[in-house]
C-alpha cells in the first residue's frame, strides 16, 4: 500500500517537471508577485498597492504585493526579487533610493538590469515649524549665512533623497546647515514640530497635512515651479537663487521594475497594463489627493531617468565617503 503511494508520487513528480518544461502560453496565466522592498504603509508600498490593484483588473489575474525589507537601501528585497525566476511573474516595487544599493554594497548589479516603470513622485519642500522666526526663504538663508553650521536641518538618513536635496540646497545657496539625520520623514517632521530641528526637507506629500493644518510653514519648493496646496502657493526656490538649477531638481521616482531578462511578451503586456492603469480615475485621484506628480514613465524614458539618478546618487555618496563600493568599479558614469 505504502509502496504504491510512493511510486505514484514519484510518477506525478516526473510528469509535472515535464509539463513545466514545455510552455509558452498566454501571459499572464497565473498570479503575479510584486516584491515591495520598503516597509508596509510607506509611500512606495501604498503606490504599488494602488497601481497593482488597477493593473490586476486589466490583466485579469491577482497581483500579490509582499514586503521584503531590510539590508542597505532595500537590498534584501532587491536581491530577493532579482533571484526569483525571470519569467515575467515577478515585479519589484522600488523607489529612487534603491539606486544607491549597489554602491552601498548591497546589490551586485547596476540599475540597468531592470526595466523601470515610474508612477511618479512628490517634490521636496523646505519648511519650518509654525513658531519659527523665519517667514521667507531669504530670511532663512541670511540667518544661515550669518551663523554657518548652526541652524539644525532635519531629513531622513544619510544618502536619502531628502538628504541629497539638502546637500544640493546647501551647494546652490552657498550655505551650511547642521544636518540631523532621522530614520524617516515622519520622525523628522515630528522633530520640526517639537522644535528639535529648525528646518526640514521632506516631500510635499509627507508634509501636506501638517502644512494644511498650520503646523508647518513651507518656505520654498526645491523645484523650478511653484506649487499650490489648498490655495496656498509655495514659491520656487529657483526664483531668488537661480544657481540651484545646477543641482536641482532631484525628485522622488516611485514605481516598480521587471528584470530585463524577462520575456519580451510579458514586458509588453505589463507596459500596456501600466499605461492603462495610469489613466484610471483611481490612480489620478490618488495622485491629486496626496500631492504626487504622476509621471507614468516606462521603457527607455524611465530607464534613462533611473540611470541618471543612479550616477548622481552614487557619486554624491562617494564624495561624502559613505559609499562602500567605488562607482567606477561598477562602471557608473559621472553625472
Amino acid at each position, binding site marked *: 500500500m*505504502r509502496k504504491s503511494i*510512493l511510486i505514484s*508520487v*514519484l510518477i*506525478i*513528480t516526473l510528469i*509535472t*517537471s515535464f*509539463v*513545466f518544461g514545455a510552455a509558452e502560453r498566454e501571459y499572464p*496565466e*497565473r*498570479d503575479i*508577485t510584486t516584491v515591495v522592498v520598503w516597509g508596509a504603509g510607506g509611500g512606495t508600498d501604498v503606490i504599488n498597492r494602488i497601481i497593482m490593484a488597477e493593473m490586476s483588473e486589466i490583466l485579469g489575474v491577482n497581483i*500579490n504585493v*509582499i514586503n521584503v525589507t531590510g539590508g542597505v537601501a532595500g537590498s534584501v528585497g532587491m536581491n530577493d526579487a532579482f533571484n526569483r525566476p525571470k519569467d515575467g511573474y515577478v515585479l519589484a516595487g522600488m523607489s529612487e533610493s534603491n539606486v544607491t544599493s549597489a554602491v552601498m554594497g548591497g546589490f551586485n548589479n547596476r540599475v540597468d538590469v531592470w526595466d523601470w516603470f515610474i508612477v511618479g513622485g512628490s517634490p521636496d519642500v523646505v519648511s519650518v515649524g509654525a513658531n519659527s522666526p523665519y517667514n521667507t526663504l531669504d530670511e532663512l538663508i541670511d540667518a544661515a549665512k550669518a551663523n554657518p*553650521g548652526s541652524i539644525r536641518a532635519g531629513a531622513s538618513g*544619510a*544618502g536619502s533623497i531628502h*538628504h541629497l536635496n539638502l*546637500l544640493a540646497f546647501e551647494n546652490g545657496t552657498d550655505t551650511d546647515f*547642521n*544636518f540631523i*539625520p532621522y530614520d524617516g520623514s515622519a520622525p523628522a517632521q515630528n522633530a520640526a514640530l517639537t522644535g528639535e530641528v529648525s528646518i526640514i526637507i521632506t516631500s510635499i506629500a509627507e508634509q501636506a497635512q501638517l502644512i494644511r493644518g498650520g503646523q508647518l510653514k513651507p518656505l520654498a519648493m526645491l523645484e523650478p515651479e511653484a506649487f499650490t496646496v489648498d490655495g496656498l502657493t509655495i514659491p520656487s526656490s529657483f526664483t531668488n537663487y537661480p544657481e540651484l538649477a545646477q543641482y536641482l531638481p532631484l525628485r522622488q521616482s516611485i514605481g516598480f521594475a521587471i528584470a530585463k531578462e524577462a520575456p519580451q511578451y510579458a514586458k509588453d503586456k505589463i507596459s500596456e497594463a501600466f499605461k492603462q492603469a495610469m489613466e484610471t480615475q483611481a490612480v489620478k485621484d490618488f495622485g491629486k489627493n496626496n500631492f504626487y506628480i504622476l509621471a507614468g514613465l516606462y521603457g527607455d524614458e524611465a530607464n534613462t531617468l533611473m540611470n541618471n539618478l543612479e550616477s548622481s546618487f552614487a557619486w554624491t555618496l562617494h564624495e*561624502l*565617503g*559613505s559609499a562602500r563600493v567605488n562607482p567606477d568599479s561598477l562602471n557608473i558614469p559621472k553625472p
Partner: protein
Amino acid sequence: MVSKEKMRQADLVTAVVLLIVGIAIIAHALTMPMEGAYGGVATYWYVSPALFPLIIGGMIIILCIVLAVNAVREKAHSQLLQIIKNYRSNRNISFSEKFKSSASRVLIVIAYISGFVYLYIPRTDFFLNVLLFLVIFIGTFYPDSKRIMSIGAMLASSFALLFIMLIVTGAADFLNNIFPYSMDVFVLIQVAAITIIFHKLIQQHQPERAQKLFTVILVTSFTVPLVLVPLFRYGLRIPLPVEGGIISIFNLVYYLLR
C-alpha cells in the same frame, strides 16, 4: 530550578564568558570612526557609531564584575575548583542517569531543529522537509522508549551526513542538473525509510500501543504540512523557502481548480 549554590557557580562561569564578550564589543567598537566626517554628518565623539556599543560593552563589563564578585563572596570559586579537581583525579565520574537522559534529549532536539533549518530548508522542497522533520521528531520522542529514541537519532544523523556528503562532493548539484527534483526524491526516500523503520521498532518495543502510536505519528506528520503549506502559499500568499517537486504539484492543482 537549580540550588542557589550551583547558581552562584554558574554565575561565575557566565560572568567570565560575558566579560570577554563585553571586552570584545569594546575592542570592536574602538575600530569605528570616532571623529571626522562620515556619511555627510560631521562626527564628534557624541555622534560616533561607536558611542552606544561602548556604553553597552562598558555596562556589561561592570555588571559582570559585580556578578563575579558576588559569586566569589559566596565561595563559588573554591567550589568550582573542587569540582574540577575531583574531575581530574577521578576521570570516570558518573553523572546521574537522569542528567544523562535529559542532556541527550536536549542535544537531540537542538540537532533536529538545526538540521531542519540549516541543512534541509535551504535546499529541498518545504513540504517534504516539514514531513520529514515531523516524522523523525514525533517518532523519536512520542513512543517514550529510550531504545527508539537513540535509534531514531542515529538514523536521522546518518541520513543528514549522507545529505552533507552529497552536497560537499557536488553530487547533489550533478543529480539536480539531470533531474531537477532529485534531492526532493532523496528526502522522500528518507521519509519512507524512516517511517518503515519506526514502524518495525514500535512493533518490537511497544507492541500493545503500536497501532495507536504509529497512526498518531503518520496522521500528524501528514496533516500539518497538508494544512500549513496551502494555507501559507495560497491563503496568505507567502512564497515558501524552496518550492520543489511537491509544491509544484500543489501549484498545478491550484491553477487547474481555479
